[in-house]
């Protein structure tokens, strides 16, 4: 909001410079964002907080300055303008709940014309455009007193009188901005005997507005219920200087002063004569008070500031908050809608006593701090993935509805009990992004695409974040689960080298996921071949921990990859991190170091290429030979020299005893027995 320095000086006696005023106002919470020269004036750009509508005027800002400088306001309006008419028929208010006070002043024989230079200067300084003398005066008084008002051409009011009522649904009015607007039954309108002539507290009608030929003026100054004005303004999609002030709250007790000020100026500058005045004030203002046993002590208790009672009372009084004789009860003025409790008084005192005078202290020592229970493990997970070349992504939690049903979600996220399984926003600020994501993949794949578009083809990305789904619980609060998603494509990068070391494949994604799980204390994850709708058949695995399925990993299906225009394979994994973190980590069980050497045997087994490594490993371990300690993977071979459906898989078996050194012959016998079992069970046998 713009405030003119010269205008302020009309209202208060001060020798402060514009810079001083700006600094002082900022100090007490009226933040001055800028000072701009305008002719011989300075304009202060004040960023007001929403609780201080009383400062949306020069009078209000001047009042703050009187509290700062301990000075007095100059009264700007003359007394005795008001002439009440008895038994009036000029104004009827049908809805006194929504229109608490309404005044009308008739001013006759005005001459509409341009405003004098001083008025033009005042308005132009604060960025207002002069129109004509009457319109400028109502605008001027609004910026001086903070009270919006409206002037009608009396002769254009059908019946020559005013009725304040709720509009009937569908009633229309063309407003000053030349837009025809349809009203509904909740909106309060100022009407003549036929039709609405203004929308209360928002904007006037075009037909009854002041024109060059206007002679007689009806000046309306009123108070409307704040909530109703806010609702009307929202529904019409129309915010005006008037609605802005009315919905925050104007000073109901200052209405006559404002009306008189405008009347006086109109008579003076437009040659009018003040005539009838009507004040319909049905809901009289009742000043509220709050008690404070010891205001000085309360200020100390909440802020640490020592301010003597006398100074507290002085500050409050300068702001219009009057103290009782014993300084234990404080009455709020009609312009402060934001004060209700003792803490509000404390703030008034503290901001004027100065936040800069509050000392810096640390609260007394207390218990030890703590991270969230899962944070240390999540930190290790993040670091592990980063060490393996992964960059951490954060994508929006809302995604496009076109991703619905395309991706399989982590197990048990979607509640089969509810019909509408997803969480949907009423509206969004990003086109189509109405869905609270049930999967991080759409966001992560967008990031992959963005990077590919910038010629970064070798990518390893991960994100940790929440996904959402509807939940049929007692309170229906959505299901929120924290998950981990990774995406891998392109080649393995060596730092400082222009070309990749090799192309990445499924096993890079799997290795990263295994390392990530290991980092959070899960070293026994199982991977089984699976079919998942967004992943390619034959390159997909379900991920299991402790017998529960926690997610999946695989190569993005050709169909989805084509949709993203990916020309290279993309491998992804998504797992329920929350479920994984809930699994108790296995404590370390130390085993004594063996004194005896191990004997290892590598064997290449030829068989059908669908016989999996895990099937082979299980077939060895299920035989429970105490001396066979370990089965590990060496290599696979397919292609030249083998049938199309064949492969050769080389494994290493390790034999060892804790009691003695094994002899070759017994190992050989055992090894043969194991191989015989493999051949019998899986139809695979040594290749050489």
């Amino acid at each position, binding site marked *: 909001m713009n405030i003119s320095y010269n205008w302020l000086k009309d209202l208060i006696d001060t020798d402060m410079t514009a810079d001083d005023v700006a600094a002082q106002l900022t100090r007490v919470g009226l933040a001055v964002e800028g000072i701009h020269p305008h002719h011989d004036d300075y304009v202060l750009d004040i960023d007001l907080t929403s609780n201080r509508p009383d400062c949306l005027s020069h009078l209000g800002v001047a009042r703050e300055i009187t509290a700062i400088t301990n000075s007095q306001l100059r009264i700007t309006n003359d007394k005795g303008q008001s002439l009440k008419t008895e038994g009036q028929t000029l104004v009827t208010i049908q809805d006194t709940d929504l229109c608490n006070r309404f005044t009308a002043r008739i001013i006759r024989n005005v001459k509409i014309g341009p405003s004098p230079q001083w008025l033009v200067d005042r308005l132009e300084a604060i960025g207002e455009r002069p129109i004509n003398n009457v319109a400028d005066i109502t605008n001027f008084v609004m910026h001086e007193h903070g009270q919006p008002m409206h002037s009608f051409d009396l002769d254009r009011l059908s019946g020559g009188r005013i009725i304040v009522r709720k509009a009937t649904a569908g009633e229309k009015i063309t407003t000053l901005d030349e837009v025809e607007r349809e009203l509904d039954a909740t909106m309060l309108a100022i009407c003549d005997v036929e039709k609405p002539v203004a929308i209360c507290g928002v904007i006037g009608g075009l037909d009854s507005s002041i024109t060059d030929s206007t002679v007689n003026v009806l000046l309306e100054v009123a108070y409307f219920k704040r909530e109703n004005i806010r609702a009307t303004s929202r529904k019409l999609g129309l915010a005006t200087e008037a609605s802005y002030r009315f919905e925050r709250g104007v000073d109901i007790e200052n209405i006559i002063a404002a009306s008189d000020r405008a009347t006086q100026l109109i008579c003076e500058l437009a040659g009018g004569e003040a005539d009838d005045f009507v004040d319909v004030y049905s809901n009289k203002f009742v000043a509220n008070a709050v008690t404070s046993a010891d205001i000085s002590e309360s200020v100390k208790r909440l802020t640490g500031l020592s301010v003597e009672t006398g100074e507290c009372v002085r500050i409050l009084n300068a702001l219009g908050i009057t103290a009782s004789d014993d300084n234990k009860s404080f009455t709020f003025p009609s312009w402060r809608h934001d004060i209700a409790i003792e803490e509000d008084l404390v703030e008034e005192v503290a901001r004027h006593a100065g936040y800069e005078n509050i000392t810096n202290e640390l609260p007394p020592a207390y218990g030890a701090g703590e991270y969230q229970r899962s944070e240390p493990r999540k930190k290790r997970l993040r670091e592990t993935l980063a060490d393996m070349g992964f*960059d951490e992504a954060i994508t929006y939690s809302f995604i496009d509805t076109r991703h619905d049903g395309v991706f399989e979600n982590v197990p048990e996220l979607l509640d089969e009990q509810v019909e509408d399984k997803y969480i949907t*926003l009423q509206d969004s600020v990003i086109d189509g992004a109405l869905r609270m994501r049930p999967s991080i993949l759409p966001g992560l794949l967008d990031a992959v695409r963005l990077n590919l578009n910038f010629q970064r083809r070798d990518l390893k990305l991960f994100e940790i974040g929440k996904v959402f789904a509807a939940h049929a619980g007692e309170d229906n609060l959505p299901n929120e689960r924290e998950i981990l998603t990774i995406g891998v494509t392109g080649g393995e990068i*060596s730092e400082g080298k222009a070309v990749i070391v090799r192309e990445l494949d499924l096993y890079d994604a799997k290795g990263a996921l295994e390392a990530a799980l290991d980092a959070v204390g899960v070293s026994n994850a199982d991977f089984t071949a699976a079919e998942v709708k967004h992943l390619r058949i034959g390159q997909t695995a379900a991920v299991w921990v402790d017998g529960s399925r926690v997610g999946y990993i695989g190569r993005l299906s050709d169909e989805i990859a084509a949709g993203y225009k990916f020309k290279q394979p993309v491998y992804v994994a998504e797992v329920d991190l929350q479920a994984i973190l809930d699994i108790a980590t296995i404590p370390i069980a130390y085993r004594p170091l063996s004194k005896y050497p191990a004997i290892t045997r590598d064997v290449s087994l030829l068989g059908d290429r669908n016989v999996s490594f895990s099937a082979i490993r299980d077939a060895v371990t299920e035989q429970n030979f105490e001396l066979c300690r370990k089965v590990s993977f060496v290599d696979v071979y397919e292609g030249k020299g083998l049938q199309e459906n064949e492969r050769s898989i080389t494994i290493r078996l390790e034999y060892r005893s804790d009691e003695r050194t094994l002899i070759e012959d017994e190992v050989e016998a055992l090894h043969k027995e194991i191989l015989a079992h493999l051949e019998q069970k899986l139809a695979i046998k040594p290749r050489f």
Partner: protein
Amino acid sequence: MSEERARVEAVMTAFLNEFAPYAGLNLSGASLDDVESKLREVAELKIRHTGKKSPISGAMNLVGKVAPNERAGFGQFVQSVQKDIAAKIDRVEKTLNEIITNAKIESERLDVTLPGRRPRTGHLHPITILRQKIEDIFVSMGYAIEDDREIETDHYNFDALNIPEGHPARESQDTFYTTQGFALRSQTSTVQIRAMERRGVPIRIIAPGKVFRRDTPDMTHVPMFHQIEGLCVDKGITMAHLKGTVTEWLKRLFGEDTVTRFRPSYFPFTEPSAEFDFSCFKCHGTGKFESDRCRPCKGSGWIELGGSGMVHPNVLRAVGVDPTVYSGFAFGFGLERMTALMYSIDDIRHMFENDVRFLEQFK
């Protein structure tokens, strides 16, 4: 004896003749192969002239032929010739070997400026990095880290925070709603309420997390961002503790010379309320950096960071805490804005685009 001596000298002469090509050997510009073949020739020469069957070894037999009184002298003479021959050959062999060794070392010289063999390391998101730093500071100051739901009821997002129905902050078009009528939390203050319900008071917590506001994305706005909110409730807590705490963590993050400034403000859930600024980390409050207007603080010397205040009594009452017995402070600020200021990032939307060229700048 002179006859025998002459025969020994003849052996020497014959050797010297044969050795002559190697005596003053000039190998500059010779290839490694040349040097190696020379070495082989010298090795043959050595066998012929120093072995048991060499002429000089044969000359030892002459010792018996000279007069007994001259034998000792003659023997010494033969030995000295023998030594001389061996020494000459050894010297050449040594030189050749040195040349070969040096050539081999030279041929295996490495370019130590080539990059080391190192897999690329990844990068944590700048928001994670800053969050972890701030969490570390507050944990060391005795605070517990808390988080909670991102989709909330109006009760937690508004009512309990002293934002009743009809309040402008509630009706402003800032909040996202689900079709079921739940709010995406518009500030992490919701965690204050849930944490106080869980833990009771006294309490000291820090709540980092995602929040959502209906802002159309542009250079300085994003509809989702991260906030960190602090809360301390105990007996006897004042605004002095708020100022001290905020100043302390900013000093730990930006250095001992950091100072703070608190300005009166308004938030529904605090009373009194304050906004806080800190002295610019780049220009240290001078407003100038390398004689130009400092960018992060726009030349003011101050960086506006967040909001704070004494917890509103209605908020304490909402969780069953008696505001006449307990008081507390709360403060909050946005991580994206802070990150953008710290690194002069002109477009805040980069935070959620996940362009690797952006991410890999943060360590």
